[in-house]
């Protein structure tokens, strides 16, 4: 079962990593932001799966921290986008 959890974690990380191609292609900054959001969610899922497969203590707290900060960078980016829109209007 542990092998399965790890495999699931690996598949999720690889999948969302492929999604990072959106950072490359854009075209909008918002699209890039979405790719990072997806990576964040996938990272949390992969962390939880590895936490339960390897039983290393404290990994679930890392996932908790990541979940708390999931929106943090996005908020700053959106603030930035808002500000540049606001100035051009």
């Amino acid at each position, binding site marked *: 079962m542990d092998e399965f959890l790890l495999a699931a974690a690996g598949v999720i*990380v690889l999948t969302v990593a492929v999604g990072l191609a959106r950072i490359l292609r854009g075209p909008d*900054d918002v699209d890039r932001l979405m790719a990072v959001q997806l990576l964040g969610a996938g990272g949390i899922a992969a962390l939880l799966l590895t936490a339960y497969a390897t039983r*290393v203590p404290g990994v679930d*707290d890392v996932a908790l921290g*990541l979940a708390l900060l999931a929106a943090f960078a996005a908020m*700053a980016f959106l603030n930035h986008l808002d500000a540049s829109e606001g100035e051009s209007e």
Partner: protein
Amino acid sequence: MSVLAALDLGLALLVVGVAAWTVSARNLFAAVVGYVAYGLLLALVWVRLYAPDVALTEAAVGGGVTGVLLVTAGKRLDALASAEIGAPPGRGLKIFAGALAALVAGALAWVVLTLPSTPPSLAPAAAEAASGPGAGLGNPITAVLISYRSFDTMLEKVVLILAVLGVWSVGADAAWGRAPAPLRKPEPDGAMILLAQVLAPVGLLIGLHIFWVGADAPGGAFQGGALLAAMGMVAMMARLMAPPRIDSRKLRLALVAGPAVFLVVGVAGLMLAGHLFAYPQNFAKPLILFIEAFMVVSIAVALPMLVSGPPDGGAK
């Protein structure tokens, strides 16, 4: 190849790929987004290296606070670039910069490659100190940070205060004593306000939890403080809170509280336990938690002040 090894290899390749892309990206915003993704991936790498303490720090600082710092810095750079368009660096300068970078990288590589096969290490001594008397903690990392190399840990927080002073000193003379510019100029959306109202209290609890369990499990003062700092910035970004004036006494007290308490307890150790920065055996754990509580306050205040930037002169 086992599943775990394949996972590690894929993760390593991914980190290198995202790093290379972040360096080569021409669009400033895209580079910052890449850097945040890189921080997230590094947190996963640290977990795989069995270092959840470092992973927590990386998640909070690398993926979170630094990302916000870079976005804010990028915004200011944009404003500067539109004001005065500097000449692009000439070919000579580019070659010189490239050569310098190659030299540094080469020297580093040389040092790493010529390390003796059993490098000199303080790890056994640190491990002994962490499990020895006077440490009194279940988490060896916190024990090493606060007991074995307490002086370094204290100085690290002093460096953080110096960095804040450095940022403040960049501001105009006339602005000294005022508050930094808010992290957001226009009024935020309702959704952002709601998000901040939900996240900040929950984050406060989680930050304190990470600090508290740090005595016996992965976590600790820096990780907890960094999460609290992030929550402070969330509140500032939604304009639920304004950055404080830099001449505020409360702010300054909070900034120096950590290192000051650490120093006082350390000097008291000279009389109570025989030497500087030693803790009396039976009181080690409460004393360490006492010091760490003030460290949390200092870190939670210093990081948002670093990101907020120099005091704002108001009208330009």
